[in-house]
């Protein structure tokens, strides 16, 4: 196995990006988290071609990363030039479960991503983090006027997971949306569901939503 890994690591330097891409993916599929493969994949996160960076990221996600590695190597990828890489970085952060809370400040920044489906994904992950993402409340409320309905819906879902009945500012904002004729009916319906959820739940002791689904 070591021989194959050495060969694949060598292929990560190939001129043809498709070979680098295949090598990066195969290293992940081998599932061997040894130092040589790991370090080579980390280095490949800076490849000049986006789909090679993405392949390295996908493989590292499979090999599992610890929190220091997430902060050092994955969080910077939230600024990648390609939206698929940014979105996958968000998914990789989400894999950390409750510990993903350390990335909340960076996820809040990513709520301003230029691509709507990255913003939607970020909002969703903040909701998955739950009450540990409370500092995202204001930014998520700003997303309720996002141009894209999908982002508004994901932000509402997140607020439902993060907020409690004592978050009066959030409740006031949500109640205003129900009466706002500029908001489409799916958003208004979602607000009603979220309001009920917030009013019912006592999240004072909860630090992670029980319905969390792993990516």
């Amino acid at each position, binding site marked *: 196995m070591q021989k194959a890994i050495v060969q694949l690591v060598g292929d990560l330097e190939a001129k043809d990006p498709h070979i680098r891409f295949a090598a990066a993916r195969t290293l992940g599929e081998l599932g061997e988290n040894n130092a040589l493969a790991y370090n080579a994949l980390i280095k490949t996160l800076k490849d000049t071609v986006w789909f090679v960076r993405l392949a390295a990221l996908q493989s590292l996600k499979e090999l599992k990363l610890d929190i220091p590695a997430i902060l050092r190597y994955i969080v910077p990828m939230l600024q990648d030039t390609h939206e*698929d890489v940014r979105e996958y970085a968000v998914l990789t952060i989400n894999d950390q479960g409750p510990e993903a809370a350390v990335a909340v400040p960076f996820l809040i920044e990513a709520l301003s991503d230029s691509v709507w489906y990255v913003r939607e994904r970020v909002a969703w992950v903040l909701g998955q983090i739950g009450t540990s993402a409370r500092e995202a409340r204001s930014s998520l409320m700003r997303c309720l006027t996002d141009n894209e309905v*999908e982002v508004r819906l994901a932000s509402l879902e997140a607020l439902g997971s993060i907020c409690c009945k004592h978050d009066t500012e959030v409740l006031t904002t949500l109640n205003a949306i129900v009466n706002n004729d500029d908001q489409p009916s799916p958003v208004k319906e979602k607000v009603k569901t979220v309001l009920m959820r917030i009013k019912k739940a006592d999240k004072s002791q909860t630090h992670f939503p029980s319905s969390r689904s792993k*990516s």
Partner: protein
Amino acid sequence: MTKKILIIDDEEDVRTYLNSLLTNSGYHTKVADDGEDGFRKLTEFFPDLIILDIIMPNQSGVGFYRKLKKSEVHKDIPVIILSAVTQYKDFFAHDHQSVPRPQEFLEKPFSPQELLNKIATYIK
């Protein structure tokens, strides 16, 4: 009436192969080499089904798919994802999203008969 299929793939060999396979099977086809080209062809061709690669220069298959599903005119066109990278399913794997998942995923290399069977499921 002949059914129309739009093939979006950056690899010329794959485009040529699919084009030949589908034309010989009685479909009318058009090819595009990335997501941006795909969207241009989509509006002029209005296909009954789209075969979509994922890893392509410029706009990827993920970007194309999300844009497609937001288009009131084109959102109901069925999509078969044809990719060598199964991890791409991760992008579509969450039911939280308002964007529905693609109809089918097929891994490269694929069986031509399997592809034709899947196409027949969506356009008769």
